[in-house]
C-alpha cells in the first residue's frame, strides 16, 4: 500500500519526464541544495555550458519567485525576541525539472491572490510575445527603473526566464476559490 502509493506518484512524474520534483515550503537553503544537485545532474548529462547555465538560471528565478511571492505561507505567530531578523515566514510552491527529447523544462507553480492575476497575465503575455531583441530592450529599461510596488527583487525575473528560454514561456492560471488562483509557469531550454 505504502510502496504502491509512492511508486504511483513517482511513475506519474516519470511519465511526464520529470527528473526533479519539489513540492513544499521553499527556503533559500532548499534552493542552494537542489541547485547543487541539478548542476551535478546536468554535468552527468553532459549538457553544454550554455544549456547548463540557462537551466540553472531559470531554476533560480523560479525558486526565488516562490520564496518571495507565493500567496501560500506559514509563519510563526510570535517570533522569539532573540530571533529578531530570522526568517519567520516560509512559502509553499511546487517546482519540477524535466526532459522532453533534447529539451529541459523548468515548471513552477504556486498560489497567487485573485487580485494579482490580471496584472500577472498582462505582464506575462507581453513578455511571451516579445522577440529576443524586444526582451533585451525591456530588460534594460527595467534594470534602470525603480522596482514596481510589491516587488522584492529587481522586477526582472520573468524577463530573465524568457531571455534564457529557447521557446516562448508558457503560463496558466487555475481558480482555487474566490481569493486564490494557482499560477503555473513553464520554461523550455
Amino acid at each position: 500500500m505504502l510502496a504502491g502509493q509512492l511508486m504511483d506518484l513517482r511513475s506519474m512524474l516519470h511519465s511526464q519526464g520529470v527528473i526533479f520534483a519539489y513540492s513544499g515550503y521553499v527556503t533559500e537553503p532548499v534552493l542552494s541544495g537542489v541547485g547543487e544537485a541539478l548542476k551535478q545532474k546536468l554535468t552527468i548529462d553532459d549538457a553544454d555550458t550554455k544549456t547548463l547555465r540557462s537551466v540553472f538560471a531559470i531554476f533560480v528565478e523560479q525558486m526565488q519567485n516562490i520564496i518571495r511571492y507565493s500567496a501560500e505561507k506559514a509563519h510563526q505567530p510570535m517570533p522569539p525576541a532573540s530571533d529578531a531578523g530570522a526568517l519567520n515566514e516560509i512559502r509553499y510552491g511546487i517546482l519540477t525539472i524535466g526532459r522532453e527529447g533534447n529539451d529541459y523544462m523548468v515548471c513552477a507553480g504556486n498560489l497567487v491572490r485573485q487580485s494579482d492575476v490580471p496584472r500577472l497575465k498582462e505582464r506575462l503575455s507581453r513578455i511571451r510575445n516579445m522577440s529576443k531583441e524586444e526582451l533585451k530592450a525591456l530588460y534594460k529599461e527595467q534594470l534602470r527603473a525603480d522596482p514596481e510596488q510589491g516587488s522584492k527583487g529587481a522586477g526582472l525575473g520573468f524577463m530573465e526566464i524568457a531571455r534564457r528560454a529557447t521557446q516562448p514561456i508558457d503560463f496558466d492560471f487555475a481558480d482555487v476559490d474566490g481569493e486564490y488562483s494557482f499560477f503555473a509557469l513553464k520554461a523550455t531550454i
Partner: protein
Amino acid sequence: MRDKLDIEATSRTPAVVFDFANNHLKIAGESYPEDVTEFYRPVFDALDAYLGKLDKGSCRFDFELIYLNSSSAKAVMMLMDKLEAAAKKGAAVDVHWFYDKEDDTMQELGEEFGEDLETATFHLEKMPG
C-alpha cells in the same frame, strides 16, 4: 581608508578583491546571494570611499562573472554607475567585462552594461581558457 577589500567566494557569492593600493578592483564568480542588499552593501561602501578620493587618478575594474541572477544584475548596474560617475569627475576608469565564450547571455549582458558607459572605457573580453 583601508587599502584592501577581500571577500572570499562562496557557492552563491562572488570573490571581491579590491586592491585599492594598486587601483585594481575585481569581482569574480557566481552571484545569486540569499540577500543581495546585504551582500553588496559593504562592496558599495568600500567602492564609494575609494572612488571619492580617486580624483583624477586611474583605476581598473574587472568583472569576471560566470553567472548572476536578476537581482544581482541590478547591483552590477549600480557598480557600473559609480564607476561612470567617477570617470565623469575626471578619473581614468577602465572597465573590463570577461565572459565565458560558451555563454553568449553573459556576453550580451556585458554589451548592455557597456552601452551605458560614456566616459569610462569599456572592454569586452573572452575569459582565458
